[in-house]
């Protein structure tokens, strides 16, 4: 280590033996000047340090804005380092320097130009100084929505949402300008829940559009919309909708607290939220109604339910729900009540078929051929004699094929899926039978089973029915009709034991204490009979407005 020179005092003549007095004075003056300059530098450094440490950064804040725009720029740049899609646009607002920070592609630059840059540069002379932050936001900037954001974390989040950030020299607050603009899908026809006579518009991936679709259907000030940001990293906007004077007391509060307690890093799909709202996560039956139809959401809200809409998801959630809600479609309300009731009843039969038909086939073929009329029994025996497999294996084979084709058709592009459907139908319908792998009756059974599952108005509910087909098949293969009966009872018990927000999953189905709800359950009574909201949902105001006459 080099040792620092130690100061020693000598006579000037000894140090500068050859200099004249004037030269010595000149050098002394230069030295004094250097000392002054170093003091100024020290003072400037101290000022910067003072600025940095004037107010300590609060918890969870990466830094704190200063009066110096250059420092602020450096701080923002360091917070958004290696984000090449961030644009920094410098300009002069009167005498002061100004900086706009925004995300390219998510910001409306034209709007920014007219409402911020032109306003600040055009209205102020080059020597004019800016007033305080309120003057800037209230008088100078002409954008519709301007927010002062003193917290850097909020400022950064706003930039990432597409709202530009304005920094001005001499002002230690940042200004966020609502100028977000991004490409989005237009409101289009519902793809999975099309209705013959009902409205055709459906949700898209933009939260504001989706809320607007709901709002457009009702001018009710009691319809409340609360927006939260969930996801530590993604900061996804999630809206909670309910009708304040109808929703069951404490239901909205409970769901709100559930939403606020979600601690995950990302929310990409509405399903990410859904799984935090239900208790029985291993239950295959859907406990939240997911729909892409705004009319369904509005109808649900006015029955006393709560809706959740997640940004970037083309669907909204409705909860709590019951089994009947999954078995109803919009067409039930656009058609004649008698026909709608018949169709609803048919859906319940279809649900039974979707789970139990293959099992009934296996049990009859394996255990109880005598239950059939003799002619049919002999015919089936003849068909079965051509196939080498036991009925259970045969059923599993066909079931497996059906599942594979279903998956293939769902995953493929629309044009190809039609072709795959034809190939599947040919393979299942003819080749498998001709190859002797399965008999023709089983093909009919499996096809009918598949169609029954597809006929469910709710796709997740149809999937749940598919799930239960396998245990039903196993029960039938072990104990025949006895096994099916026991499995059916166990399934009933399971369904009865399910709860969604303290409500029975089966709702009013055959519950005599809720007999007044039966008018719009298994059957659909005409609208003039439906004078009350469902009792099962515990709505505060049960009277449907305008229906008392």
């Amino acid at each position: 280590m080099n040792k620092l020179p130690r100061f020693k005092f000598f006579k000037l003549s000894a140090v500068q033996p050859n200099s004249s007095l004037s030269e010595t004075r000149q050098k002394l003056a230069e030295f004094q000047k250097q000392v002054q300059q170093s003091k100024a530098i020290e003072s400037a450094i101290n000022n910067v340090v003072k600025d940095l440490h004037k107010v300590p950064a609060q918890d969870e804040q990466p830094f704190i804005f200063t009066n110096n725009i250059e420092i602020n720029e450096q701080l923002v740049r360091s917070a958004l380092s290696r984000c090449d899609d961030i644009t920094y646009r410098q300009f002069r607002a009167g005498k002061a320097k100004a900086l706009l920070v925004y995300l390219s592609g998510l910001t409306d630059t034209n709007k920014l130009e007219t409402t911020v840059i032109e306003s600040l540069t055009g209205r102020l002379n080059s020597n004019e100084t800016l007033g305080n932050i309120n003057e800037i936001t209230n008088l100078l900037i002409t954008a519709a929505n301007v927010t002062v954001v003193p917290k850097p974390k909020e400022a950064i989040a706003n930039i990432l949402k597409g709202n530009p950030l304005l920094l001005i020299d001499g002002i230690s607050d940042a200004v966020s300008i609502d100028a977000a603009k991004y490409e989005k899908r237009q409101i289009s026809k519902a793809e999975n829940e099309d209705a013959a006579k009902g409205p055709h518009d459906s949700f898209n991936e933009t939260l504001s559009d989706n809320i607007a679709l709901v709002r457009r259907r009702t001018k009710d000030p009691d319809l409340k919309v609360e927006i939260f940001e969930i996801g530590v990293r993604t900061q996804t906007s999630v809206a909670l909708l309910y009708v304040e004077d109808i929703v069951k007391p404490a239901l909205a509060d409970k769901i709100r607290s559930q939403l606020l307690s979600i601690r995950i890093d990302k929310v990409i799909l509405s399903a990410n939220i859904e799984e935090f709202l239900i208790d029985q996560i291993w239950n295959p039956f859907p406990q939240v109604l997911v729909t892409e139809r705004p009319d369904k959401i509005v109808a649900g809200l006015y029955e006393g339910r709560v809706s959740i809409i997640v940004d970037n998801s083309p669907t909204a959630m409705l909860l709590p729900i019951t089994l009947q809600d999954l078995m109803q479609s919009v067409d039930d309300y656009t058609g004649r009540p008698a026909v709608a009731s018949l169709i609803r009843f048919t859906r319940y039969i279809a649900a039974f078929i979707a789970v139990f038909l293959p099992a009934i086939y296996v049990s009859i073929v394996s255990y109880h051929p005598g239950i059939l009329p003799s002619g049919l029994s002999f015919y089936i025996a003849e068909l079965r004699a051509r196939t080498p497999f036991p009925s259970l294996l045969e059923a599993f084979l066909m079931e497996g094929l059906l599942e594979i084709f279903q998956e293939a058709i769902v995953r493929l592009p629309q044009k190809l899926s039609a072709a795959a459907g034809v190939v599947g139908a040919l393979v299942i319908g003819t080749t498998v039978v001709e190859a002797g792998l399965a008999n023709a009756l089983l093909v009919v059974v499996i096809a009918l089973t598949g169609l029954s599952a597809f006929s469910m108005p709710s796709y997740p509910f149809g999937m749940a029915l598919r799930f239960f087909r396998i245990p039903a098949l196993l029960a039938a293969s072990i104990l025949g009709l006895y096994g099916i009966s026991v499995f059916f009872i166990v399934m009933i018990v399971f369904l009865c034991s399910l709860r969604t927000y303290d409500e029975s999953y089966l709702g009013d189905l055959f519950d005599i204490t809720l007999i007044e709800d039966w008018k719009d359950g298994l059957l659909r009574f005409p609208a003039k009979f439906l004078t009350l909201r469902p009792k099962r949902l515990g709505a505060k105001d049960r009277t449907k407005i305008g229906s008392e006459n």
Partner: protein
Amino acid sequence: MANLEAKGKMSPWQLGIVITSALLTARLLPATTYIVISSEQFLWLSSALAGLLFYSAAYLIILLGQQFPNETIGEYLPRLVGKKFGAVVFLIFITVQLINIINCLIAITTLYSIFLFDQTPRAVLIIVLLLAVIYCTMQEWGTILRVIQILVLALPMLYGFYSLIWINFETLNLLPLWPDNFSGILQGVAYHTEYYPGYESLLVLLPLAARGKVSFARTVGWGFLLVTIMYIIGGIVLIGAISAKTVSNVSYPVVFAMKSVEIPGTFIERLEDHMVTLFLPVTYISMMLSYYVIGEGCRKYLNYNDHRPFIPLFLPLIFFVCAFTNTPDRLEVLRNFSMFIGLFFSFVIIPLLLILAWRKKGNIEQC
């Protein structure tokens, strides 16, 4: 309450449904034979008298329950008859419920093994059904109540199937219309313990029912009336279809009668198999209810928080007795024992308890 949060209570009408659904089980199938041996073609009269008799027993239970509202039998017995006698009576009550489960299990599994299976061991059928019963019994009362209200729909379907026997009805089989063997009819009434089981559950279920404008006696009475009418009509049609002599000579006369039904020109054949299938949910309700009553009764008696710990305790016992009772002699012993203990409990113990309760209440009022 407006919604379903009130899971632990039921309305008086729900109580009526619960008791009605507990009464009709597969136990009546083999019992019909020996009832008809005694009461011959007057099965319907015997059933009507039995309905009256067993409703009176149920009525006594309701009266007893009124003396101790919000309490089950296990809670007031020690106060009423002392700890030791209370334990004995409670044990008899549990035995009555256990015997109902055992009889139901034996009846339904025998029925299945005879008519729908040829080789499957009955023990397998017993354990599977018993596990299904336990699964339901492990739920809370609200769930059990919903299960009952759904499965009870099998009852009208079953009766609908059974009504097809009318096709073979012949009035001559009912003659003579005037009974000359009254003692036989009365003997047949005693055998009706198999026709009207499960009403003893009221001793535990009454506190679970909310008292309202309608009295329990009325709702339970409607249930008994409905079942009795079904039995009366069923008895008339059965005797009319296959005659009393045939009924007394076959093991399962109802199924036998169903076998002889043919609906020409229709696809449907062998209706007895469908009817047998429908007996399962109907019998399941009674078994599950008795099992729940055992668990809930023990919970209250031993002051536990939950009825669930008591449910698995009885599984080995029930299974063993069911599996052991596999010969006609053992079945006969079990049948006689269940009849004796059922009648003893309903017509000796319950009236005595009621008299004691009245006397104690009278003493307190005098004081």
